[in-house]
């Protein structure tokens, strides 16, 4: 009977399975949610949602599916307007000329001011009417991209005082989105890439072998084995300077997490695209350069390679000899990328720029093609995916 609700949840990316649905039915049958819609909400949330980052999505779908089922309560709550929503609205309510004008002045505050005015006006016009303002519609600029349907925010409504229900408060809003990255979280994400092996000095008691050997010999014969540790080997290439500057913090976090997680890790810097040399010290990047060939020869092919960069540059920098902005490169960046990828089968690219903008930059598509689509966004989810890809045996 809630199939529609179930399907809508799946459509909106809440990973619910049949088993959970059946559990919910079982719970309903036992009368766990007989008292109110609220109880049903809590029960279905406990059964269907298994991760706090999905709670917000769940609340929205629930609100959408069961809208108007409950009588108004006379509670008056104003949900505040999230900033990104305002941004999206900017595209809807301001004419391109106005946008250009404000853009020209470079005054973000003023833009917000105008928007708020617009919203006020809009509220008045719609008095008594629609409670929700949807943000469907795509931008004329393509900057803020496609706005997923069904994202709505609460708006105080003048006279009717309709209730904002629990799920409409959307208290879990800031738990959604995997953008928040701390080193702790990155470390956890990187942990997926583990490959335990026993190497080095024998320091642990090997119980099995000791017993076997003792039984065989007739006297206590202690056997030792080396400790188990992570034997994964990683090369990381960081893009520095230029368009990477806004992402310095996140790259630092990734770097420190990777450093503590991988014992065998080597890192190098490059600018925009990989060419015949890289460096390890940004202060002396002109003097102490390392030949890329040396890297290819020095590190065996069981190393896993991670590129970190926004891959945002002119297409010439990838495709043509002499395309680099910093120096004259004899061979194209594409060539060097291919050379490296030929040696290291396990390679991925982490891109700190937002995934929705990727199709708009030609060089990103080029690099992505070079990487066989193994480009992931530098968010927790992206790192997770990337580590899964890297740990695949090739």
């Amino acid at each position: 009977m809630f199939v529609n609700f179930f399907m809508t949840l799946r459509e909106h990316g809440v990973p619910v399975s049949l088993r959970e649905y059946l559990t919910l039915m079982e719970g309903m049958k036992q009368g766990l949610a007989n008292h109110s819609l609220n109880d049903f909400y809590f029960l279905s949330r406990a059964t269907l949602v298994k991760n706090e980052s999905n709670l917000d999505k769940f609340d929205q779908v629930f609100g959408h599916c069961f809208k108007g089922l409950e009588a108004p309560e006379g509670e008056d709550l104003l949900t505040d307007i999230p900033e990104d929503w305002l941004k999206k609205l900017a595209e809807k309510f301001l004419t391109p000329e106005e946008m250009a004008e404000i853009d020209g002045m470079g005054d973000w505050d003023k833009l917000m001011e105008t928007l708020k005015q617009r919203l006020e006006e809009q509220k008045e016009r719609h008095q008594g009417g629609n409670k929700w303002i949807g943000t469907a519609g795509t931008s004329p600029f393509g900057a803020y991209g496609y706005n997923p349907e069904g994202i709505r925010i609460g708006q105080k409504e003048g006279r009717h005082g309709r209730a904002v229900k629990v799920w409409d408060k959307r208290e879990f809003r800031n738990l959604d989105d995997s953008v928040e990255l701390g080193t702790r979280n990155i470390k956890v994400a990187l942990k997926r890439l583990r490959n335990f092996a026993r190497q080095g000095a024998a320091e642990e008691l090997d119980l099995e072998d000791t017993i076997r050997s003792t039984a065989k010999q007739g006297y206590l014969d202690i056997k030792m084995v080396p400790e188990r540790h992570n034997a994964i080997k990683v090369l990381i290439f960081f893009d520095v300077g230029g368009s990477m500057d806004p992402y310095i913090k996140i790259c630092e976090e990734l770097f420190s997490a990777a450093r503590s997680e991988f014992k065998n890790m080597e890192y190098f810097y490059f600018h925009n695209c990989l060419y015949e040399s890289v460096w390890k010290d940004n202060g002396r990047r002109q003097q102490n350069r390392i030949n890329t060939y040396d890297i290819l020869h020095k590190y065996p092919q069981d190393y896993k390679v991670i590129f970190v960069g926004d891959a945002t540059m002119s297409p010439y920098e990838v495709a043509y000899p002499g395309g680099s902005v910093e120096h004259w490169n004899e061979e194209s960046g594409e060539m060097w990328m291919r050379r490296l990828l030929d040696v290291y089968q396990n390679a991925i690219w982490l891109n700190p720029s937002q995934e929705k903008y990727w199709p708009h930059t030609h060089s990103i598509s080029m690099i992505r093609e070079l990487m066989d689509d193994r480009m992931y966004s530098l968010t927790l989810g992206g790192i997770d995916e990337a580590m899964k890809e890297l740990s695949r045996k090739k």
Partner: protein
Amino acid sequence: MKFTGTETYVATEDLMVAVNAALALKRPLLIKGEPGTGKTVLAHEVAKALNKDLLEWHIKSTTKAQQGLYEYDAVSRLRDSQLGDKKVHDIRNYINKGKLWQAFTAEDSPILLIDEIDKADIEFPNDLLQELDRMEFNVYETGETIKAHNRPLVIITSNNEKDLPDAFLRRCFFHYIKFPDKDTMGDIVNVHYPDIQNMLVREALNLFYDVRDVPGLKKKPSTSELLDWLKLLMVEDMPLEILRSKDKNKLIPPLHGALLKNEQDVHMLERLAFMNRRESR
């Protein structure tokens, strides 16, 4: 048999629904939330409210799933065999029951707390899938099957340090304890310190939420830290004026050591308070 909170534990409505659902359908309940919001305490309180025994299994990074079922003590059998002990002929003498075994075979179905499941290795939850789902397991050494007659209520807590596998999650109920709002927090404080002055609580709560709102804190103070802090304030008999006088002499909350556990956080708060004071001049 329903759980409705206890004298010492304020349960929100959604938490009660989740606990009761887990009780009714005999499924494990997975609890997540900020550290210090009462995840572990929940199991204690449920056990108290329902008058059942509580079995605690605290997970560490070295814990193996097998340890929860049973452990075969090969070393002492080996020793006994060298000493010629009679015990050595029966392998059952060397099998130590784990927490799950104890929970499954207990007379009155107890409550089993698996605390901080995310501390263990990433494979740990997968190794317990069948055991928690069907509530039975095999003992290879003796060939017997241990099966729960009364399924215990299993409460699992996680601090989100590792993702849990989907297959595991599908078998659980899930509840995220969100940070209590001011009213609920007031209730919680009342439950713990019934004879505290109302004024003190109000001032302290205001300060507490102010501190929590400071952007960029490494570790936000949580319920348990607030309770510790209040206790300290009471013991020290802190006059209300000190809590109230926001930026005169004292820069940061008195006895802040109970709230902030990180010296960078303390520095940041001091700096912010200093800037505030300069602005207000």
